[in-house]
């Protein structure tokens, strides 16, 4: 009995020490390993150039500074996401502005929403006109991996969705479902949440003269 208690205590102690050390290692990693931040790279610039054509090829538009990324205060962005998200994975990642060409003054919001599983968010670029109404929308990435959901909504119904969403300043999952005929509820919810938080960001920027 005594040996058994001793052995159990030893096991509990060993597991506790290992857990504490592992938590410390993870906390250290979390504090010092840099987090991914979206940047205005050529891939994103190419997509923006497709959403809001400059009349130039993407590389030239990118090199000549047709687009720029808005410097948003990190804390204010975190607060905005916290106050407006529909679920934990739903957030605005970055905001870009067209500064030259026919669409000068238009805004592009990069945001994500949860698709089928938490590890696989749907990421969209939503372009807004100067009145914060949706001009067009493009998928930046979709990594849903569950059988039956991969690409069904976005591949087959996305053109319908683009027509439906143009000019809108608000949207709900039921609107998308009814308009596009899509059946993949998880994807629809992810897209609706992503567009909705993008609309809220565009409206906030519009009200505050391009600042949060």
């Amino acid at each position, binding site marked *: 009995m005594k040996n058994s208690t001793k052995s159990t205590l030893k096991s509990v102690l*060993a597991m506790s020490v290992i857990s504490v050390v*592992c938590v410390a290692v993870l906390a250290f990693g979390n504090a010092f390993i840099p987090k991914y931040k979206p940047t205005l790279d050529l891939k994103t610039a190419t997509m923006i150039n497709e959403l809001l054509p400059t009349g130039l090829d993407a590389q030239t538009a990118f090199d000549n500074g047709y687009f720029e990324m808005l410097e948003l205060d990190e804390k204010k962005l975190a607060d905005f996401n916290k106050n407006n998200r529909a679920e934990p994975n739903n957030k605005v990642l970055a905001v870009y502005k067209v500064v030259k060409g026919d669409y000068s003054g238009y805004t592009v919001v990069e945001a994500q929403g949860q698709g089928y*599983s938490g*590890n*696989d968010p749907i990421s969209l670029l939503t372009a807004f006109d100067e009145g914060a109404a949706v001009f067009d929308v493009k998928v930046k990435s979709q990594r849903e991996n569950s059988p039956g959901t991969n690409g069904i909504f976005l591949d087959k119904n996305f053109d319908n969705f683009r027509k439906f969403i143009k000019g809108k300043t608000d949207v709900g999952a039921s609107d998308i479902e009814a308009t596009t005929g899509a059946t993949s509820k998880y994807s629809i919810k992810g897209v609706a949440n992503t567009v909705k938080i993008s609309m809220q960001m565009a409206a906030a920027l519009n009200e505050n003269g391009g600042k949060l």
Partner: protein
Amino acid sequence: MNGKTLRNAALGGILNNPVFVLVLGMCPTIAQSNSIINAFGLGCATAVVLVFSNIAISLLRKVIPDKVRLPAYIVIIATFVTIVQMVISGFLPELYASISSFIPLIVVNCIILGRAESFASKNSVLASAVDGLSMGIGFILSITLLGAIRQGLGAMGLSLFVQPAGGFIVLGFVMALFNCLMGIFKNRHKTLMEA
């Protein structure tokens, strides 16, 4: 630690190849070997976790009570997997986008727990590190080879081989070929293998 243990550990990745001989880690092998980049990325992530978890478990082998060894191994492995996930998401976002679903699954990859239980918990730190490195390289080579074959077949229009069903077919053929070649090699170098 003797020379034979170290040599066996160093050759483990080939002679006891985790994919083609031990048939471990089949889920990520099939799921992520549909392209070379994904396969190589996941292989490297797994190899890094394998090396560091082997070292940590070997260091702690005399401290961890037998009763709680498996939960302790899982906690240690999960820590390294999370660190690897943070590093990949921070520095390689494109790769992370492709393999993010499978990185957390490295925790339950049988190769890692298998090496921890059968090797690292019984051998010195150096031998365990060599074993982890050898097995890791063996895993990278096998999953990348499968990725290359499947991507090549897919590029030739044989899209079945990019799907999981095709992955099993390719794996079966490559596994058969590998074991056939290993059999020939072992017969020719019988004395070397028995030494």
